[in-house]
């Protein structure tokens, strides 16, 4: 066993069995190691700082699906909770909610293979998105690095979020981008889904024999470790163009230079409506690979050179940006790809410029390099501004719905009496991306408080701020979603499922049924995906009256879901 052997948390006989499975170098009960193993990811401010997540009692590092299944069976035999993680990076990466669980660190599972012709990659849990993106690019393919960034696990990201800038032409429903997988059920059975169930070499297609079971493991979000462990997966890659990106630059401003058949355009429009109209018009064409609006404060972040600390540099810049400037700056960012040929790129550029002209836009001089899209995505700078990345809601739906969501959020934030608790966004329109070739839009609404203020253990933190911010973060998103219809993504991570299920046909009951079916002892990922219920238990005030009322009213209807 690695490190100090301690058996006051998990019985020695369990540890010895686990050691037999993974080898002595790949298991530890050392508190120095275990206690350093949690508190990562987006949930840091909510779960870790508030004591919701717990240190594991043991960490094991399996290397094969069979080892994972054996570990799970041992845990079942002894009634010990377990939870997996792979990249240990974004989202609630270490979701142990009870003491003395077994953490399965899947980083040793790093097998990978790419079928270039049929455009898919087979990966195990330890492979990250940046690696996959790089390998795909070598093969005239691209991989969708999600908003969580290139550091996220390929496999885990497909089961949790699985969307990013590149979802303009590849479905954002990441379960539909999964061709096959190996799943260790919460009781330790190994199942194969997708075409992999048909044979060992059949990793190419995700439909089931009849019903598609991959959809069980991924909906709008995922089970966050609460439904067993997926160890191996085949994911789709997408046709791109044959030339490589060239990395360049140093330090905080590294970028990739775009190859000749890939080109970015930053275009300024006179009004927001003109920008949105241009985006709508692009959606009616068949051009473009990325279409988005980058919020102003993210643009300010990108300008920080890093000679001094980023945070001061950011605020030195952002503090001098006026609301008027923000209100009058409307920049769209568009990526064109000459997938067929350079002639295609030229054609698409002409079409884009036609639209720009019609909408009174002006194409700005655009550096043909990119810092984030192809590798880093959000993670490049998201914690930089205040130390806390607090997404209130993210969602996707139609153009009109998403626009409304953004307007509602902007308005709520602008008129919030305690808005100075957060980074002043100056009335800025939140993230806005176009997906599914114009059929959907995606948005993320962020608030960023000071990380110190969110920390109950920080004697210098502002307890009152934390006291009112948590309810704001947890309750505002779901209420907005019901007002606008925009489908939120943070059930289970930011907001509790159980409290919202009633507004969505009581889907939480289905989750409970299947959780009971497949994890009768409740050992897989402890309470996930019901982790937020733990927060609510400890702090019932986080669910505001407005929230409760909105849910209850939604349940009553009338709604299209009600039988006529």
């Amino acid at each position, binding site marked *: 066993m690695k490190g100090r052997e301690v058996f006051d948390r998990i019985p020695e006989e369990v540890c010895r069995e686990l050691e037999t499975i993974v080898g002595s170098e790949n298991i530890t009960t050392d508190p120095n190691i275990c206690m350093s193993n949690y508190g990562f990811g987006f949930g840091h401010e909510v779960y870790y700082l508030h004591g919701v997540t717990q240190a594991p009692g043991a960490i094991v590092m399996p290397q094969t699906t069979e080892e994972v299944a054996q570990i799970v069976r041992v845990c079942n035999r002894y009634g010990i909770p377990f939870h997996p993680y792979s990249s240990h990076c974004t989202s609630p990466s270490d979701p142990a909610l009870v003491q003395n669980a077994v953490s399965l660190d899947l980083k040793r599972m790093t097998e990978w293979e790419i079928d270039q*012709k*049929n*455009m898919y990659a087979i990966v195990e849990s330890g492979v990250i998105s940046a690696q996959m993106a790089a390998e795909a690019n070598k093969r005239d393919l691209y991989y969708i690095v999600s908003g969580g960034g290139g550091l996220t696990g390929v496999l885990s990201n497909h089961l949790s979020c699985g969307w990013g800038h590149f979802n303009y032409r590849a479905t954002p*429903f990441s379960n539909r981008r999964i061709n096959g997988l190996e799943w260790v059920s919460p009781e330790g059975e190994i*199942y194969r*889904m997708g*075409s992999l*169930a*048909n044979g060992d070499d*059949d990793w190419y*297609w995700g*439909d*089931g*024999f*009849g*019903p*598609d*079971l*991959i*959809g*069980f493991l*991924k*909906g*709008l979000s995922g089970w966050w470790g*609460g439904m067993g462990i997926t160890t191996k997966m085949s994911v*789709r890659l997408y*046709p791109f163009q044959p030339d490589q990106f060239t990395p360049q630059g140093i330090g905080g401003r590294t970028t990739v230079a775009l190859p000749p058949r890939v080109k970015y355009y930053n275009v300024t429009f006179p009004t927001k409506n003109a920008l949105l109209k241009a985006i709508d018009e692009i959606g*009616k*064409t*068949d051009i473009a690979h990325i279409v988005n609006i980058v919020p102003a404060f993210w643009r300010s972040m990108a300008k920080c050179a890093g000679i001094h600390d980023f945070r001061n540099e950011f605020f030195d810049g952002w503090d001098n940006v006026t609301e008027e400037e923000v209100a009058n700056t409307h920049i769209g960012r568009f990526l064109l790809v000459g997938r*067929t*040929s350079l*002639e*295609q790129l030229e*054609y698409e550029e002409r*079409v884009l410029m*036609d639209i720009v002209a019609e909408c009174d836009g002006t194409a700005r001089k655009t550096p043909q390099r990119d810092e984030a899209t192809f590798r880093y995505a959000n993670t490049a700078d998201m914690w930089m501004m205040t130390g806390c990345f607090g997404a209130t809601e993210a969602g*996707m*739906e*139609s153009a*009109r*719905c998403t626009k409304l969501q953004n307007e509602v959020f902007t308005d709520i934030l602008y008129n919030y009496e305690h808005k100075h608790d957060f980074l002043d966004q100056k009335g800025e329109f939140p993230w806005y991306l176009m997906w*599914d070739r114009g059929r959907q839009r995606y948005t993320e609404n962020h608030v960023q408080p000071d990380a110190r203020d969110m920390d109950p253990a920080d004697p210098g933190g502002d307890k009152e701020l934390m006291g009112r911010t948590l309810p704001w973060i947890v309750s505002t998103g779901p209420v907005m*979603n019901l007002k*606008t*219809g*925009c*489908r939120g993504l943070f*059930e289970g991570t930011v907001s509790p499922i159980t409290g919202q299920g*009633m507004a*969505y*046909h009581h889907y939480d009951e289905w989750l409970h*049924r*299947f959780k009971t079916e497949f994890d009768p002892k409740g050992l897989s990922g402890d309470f996930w*995906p019901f982790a937020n219920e733990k927060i609510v238990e400890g702090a019932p005030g986080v669910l505001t009256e407005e929230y409760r009322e909105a849910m209850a009213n939604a349940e009553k209807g*009338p709604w*299209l*879901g009600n*039988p*006529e």
Partner: protein
Amino acid sequence: MTVETMTLQGQLAKIVGKNNVMDSPEVIASYGRDHSIERPRAFTCVVRPGTAAETQKIIQLANELKFAVIPQSSGIHFNGNAIPKEGGVVLDLSGMNRITEIIEQSMAAHVQVGVTWEQLQMALEAKGLRCIIPLLPHASRSAIMDCLERERPVIQNYEASGPLRSLQIIWGNGELFVSGSASTGTFRQEGNLADGVYASGPGPMSYDSFFYGAQGTIGTVIWGVLSLEEIPTLSKAFFIPSNKLEHIIEPLYTILRRGVANECLVINNTSLATIFTEHWPEQFAKVKAALPPWIVIFISSALKRRPEEKIAYQEKFVRELASMKGLELLTTLPGLPAVERKLPEMLRKPWPKDKIYWKHAYKGGCQDIEFMTTLDRVEKFMPTVAEVAASHYYPVDDIGCYIQPVEDGHACQLQFSFYYDPTDTAETERIRHLYADAAAALLNQGAYFTEPYHMVAGMVYRKQGEYTALLRRFKKHFDPSGIMSPGNLCF
């Protein structure tokens, strides 16, 4: 008469009205058979609800009384899955055929399950839109059901294979549900601007995924949101003929990869001739003889903006490719006058209702066997099917074959068609045996049957015991009484 003494028909009539419960022998005979080799079956009655509420009550009653419920959403079925296998009640949903809304800005249509391709296509055409449609489907087929039965669209680029988004569902346990972004409780209330264009969720599961390929065993769909496409302003059809399939697979990968094809399919002369023969039977042989054994058909399309320029760069690419690979690139086909003008239009619509369905035009019946594979594996299945056909004295030359690439060539559906005379009992029986043997041989070779119909279901589920056991664990929650289409899949 008390409820207890009322007949089942009586109880159903209380829900839907007595005119919507039918059990005459003619009705039973009609609903108890379809165009497949599945044997006709008898059952209790047909019930036709008009609303989701009525449908829900029927299913709830079924749970109480334990009778089987077999949903049908149109009168046209080709695979036997809508025939009651264990008696019960056919739930005819064809009357729920309202196109609730066409939302142009979201390129989506909100339709009930009984809406047919023909109905939908006509409504869309008026707005310059089109369905994402399989190859010449029967006009009276339900659009939603064809999506759920994974009829692969001819538009093969982008993510077109998944045009269905939010669904309203009644599970086999009688609970109402909405999947996807329309699940919001305030959907269609004032202020809620959602269009239901997002398929997954709510929460950690994609509930819609259980309905794909389910053959009515999980529940029933009431309405769905379908993603649409615009009708192109300009299209140009290209044809690559070949004597050998192996010569066109590699170039096809390139064509798909480089994104120059909107609609794209590979078809053999038999199947193509069944589509283009106007005068049966005399013209068929001549049409077929004029065609090459294999044809890649793809359509380059452009929308409103600079359409000629788009077609130009795509054509330039394919011409260069053809030249490099030594392929013949045609813009028409010998023996099919003006096919290049007709085909793009045809591929965007269902088969005309006033003509015998193309699959039945040759001999009256057609049994397809289809499965998923990858383009580079397609060839290995050809000799297998030929051998099995020959062993059943089926003329190899009569076998139809159609390869539908999916999503830029990620995979493909391979379909073999066996034409036969359904009025000839002996021939039908021979086709039944041929089908079984072909399915078994193909399964052994790695064919991936995502829609296991007929006896294929038994073969697949016996072979994949673990998967079968897992499916059953889900089924017992969605349909605890086992009332939904028993006898289909592994249930």
